[in-house]
């Protein structure tokens, strides 16, 4: 009797789990299956390639053959790589400073809170001044503008996460280096950074993912040459209509890079999402 209720409980547990996984993963599979279906198979409730329908790669080929698609992909790659790298270049020294020095008036806690609070500002509030400012400088529709902005948006994340990372690595080696006459900068580059490397890489990946996914600034600033993937995709429906097979291809090539990178940075994701409040 007891064993029976336990088996039943187990069964219900796995059933719920299965349902959750199904709902979570369905959209990805839906995009995939549509991307390899012939247009005439689109509305057939068929799910297994080869068995139920003949898959085709023609949509992938024709989508990737479009110049605008390739350009948007490259734009997104440049923006996300540039922004993540720039944010780390500016943010890591700041994090080192906050982890190794004690500031007063304002103190370290204030700086940390100040950096985090930047993320509270709704993007639409700053989108307007950015548009006006970049227009003045003739920097609309340029990759550089989007690199700068995405670096700005991910900078607080870098500062907060890297401060924690530097707090967590032992300081003895750096101290030994000072005895040998190393300066602070050398200690950071030669000793602290290599020790914090896993955190550094994970932070870069998260910044890349966030910058890749950014939409509002891209939409506001890019009109033609600098259009990143999200903006490209948002405009697609209205120019070409909803063709399920192309939707599938476009969605997958947009979604996969950030999602895969985030999975690689798994261990640091909870930190990243809560600005270090929960370690996970």
């Amino acid at each position, binding site marked *: 009797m007891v064993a029976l209720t336990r088996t039943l409980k187990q069964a219900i547990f796995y059933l719920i*789990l299965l349902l959750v*996984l199904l709902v*979570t*993963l*369905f959209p990805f599979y*839906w995009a995939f299956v549509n991307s390899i279906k012939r247009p005439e198979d689109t509305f057939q409730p068929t799910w297994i390639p080869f068995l139920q329908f003949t898959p085709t790669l023609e949509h992938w080929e024709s989508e990737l053959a479009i110049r605008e698609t390739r350009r948007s992909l490259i734009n997104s790659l440049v923006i996300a790589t540039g922004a993540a790298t720039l944010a780390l270049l500016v943010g890591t*020294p*700041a994090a080192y400073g906050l982890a190794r*020095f004690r*500031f*007063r008036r304002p*103190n*370290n*806690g204030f*700086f940390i809170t100040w950096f985090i609070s*930047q*993320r*509270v500002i*709704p993007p*639409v*509030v*700053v989108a307007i*001044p950015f*548009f*006006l*400012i970049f227009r003045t400088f003739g920097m609309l529709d340029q990759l550089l503008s989007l690199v*700068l902005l995405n670096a*700005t948006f991910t*900078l607080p994340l870098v500062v907060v996460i890297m401060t*924690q990372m530097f*707090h967590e690595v032992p*300081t*003895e080696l750096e*101290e030994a280096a*000072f*005895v040998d006459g190393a300066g602070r900068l050398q200690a950071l580059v030669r000793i602290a950074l290599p020790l914090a490397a896993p955190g550094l890489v994970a932070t870069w990946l998260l910044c890349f993912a966030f910058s*890749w996914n950014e*939409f*509002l600034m891209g*939409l*506001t600033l890019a009109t033609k040459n600098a259009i990143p993937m*999200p903006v490209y995709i*948002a405009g697609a429906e209205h120019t070409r209509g909803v063709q*399920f097979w192309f*939707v599938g291809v*476009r969605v997958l090539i*947009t*979604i996969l890079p*950030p*999602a895969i990178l*985030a*999975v690689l940075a*798994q261990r640091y*994701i*909870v930190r990243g*999402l*809560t600005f*270090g*409040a929960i*370690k996970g």
Partner: protein
Amino acid sequence: MRAAEKRVSTAGQAATLAVGRQRARRPTAGMFFLLPAVVWILLFTIFPLIYALYTSLHAYRFGRISGFVGIQNFQRLFQDSNLHSTLIVTLQFVVASVTIEMVLGFALALLVHREFRLRGLVRTAMILPLFATPVAIGYLAITIFYERNGPINMLLYSLFRLDIPWLSHPTWALVSIILVDIWQWTPFVFLISLAALQTLPDELYEAAQIDGAGTFGLFRYITLPLMAPTLWLILLLRLVEAFKVFDIPVSLTLGGPGRATEVFSLFTYRTAMRFFDFGYAAAQGFLLLVIVMTLVTLLFRRIQHLYQEEARW
């Protein structure tokens, strides 16, 4: 040998002392590391905010400043019935999606918080929606909510003979957006809750069990109080993000049908980029900023200590 070791250790101590002194005496050296980031934020966030304030005090015509109007743009906020309906749409969206995400995500975390073989898989699967480009998800959702022969309606029809006008009916369109948001963000609540659950001390549970506490008792008197700060934190982060929502409504419904899903950010974006009424759009932006800031101020006290570790200096 001994002497050498001793020398090393005294050298280490001296170094520690020296570093300690450096920490205390020369924060200016630290400023050198901190300054670029501070200047960056001042330049790219604080300056634009000030510029937005300047913008909000002016009238624009054809995208150019046409004159100083003082607080007129802010006065318009109170009379604009379109803005009010946008606020209501946004509030409905925020309350519905955040509530459901909190309940669902936390319940799921409680369920998964145990040893079993597939836990790693569940965790990884939950990361995928969270980092999937929101615009792309909205775009994909057009095909999922497709009214004729889309997968959801096909399922609902075969099960219940239901045919729901997901994207063409005002209420259902809002529901669609809420559903997509729930799909994307429940994992957020789940992942953070799960991480926090795993840090709870086992001893408390063992002690309570010895005292004869039941499952509900454990939850009510141990899990919930210990999880409260984390849950407040998640709620705050979710609320802030939900009020900013933009990507999904743009790609899934474009704010329609009519203006049924025109959330605040989209309304402001259109005021600026379609009607080039930058002054009024900036004023709207500040209203959104005030709403979000109020939430943060109200809730921040409850979670402040979670950031205490970083603020320990």
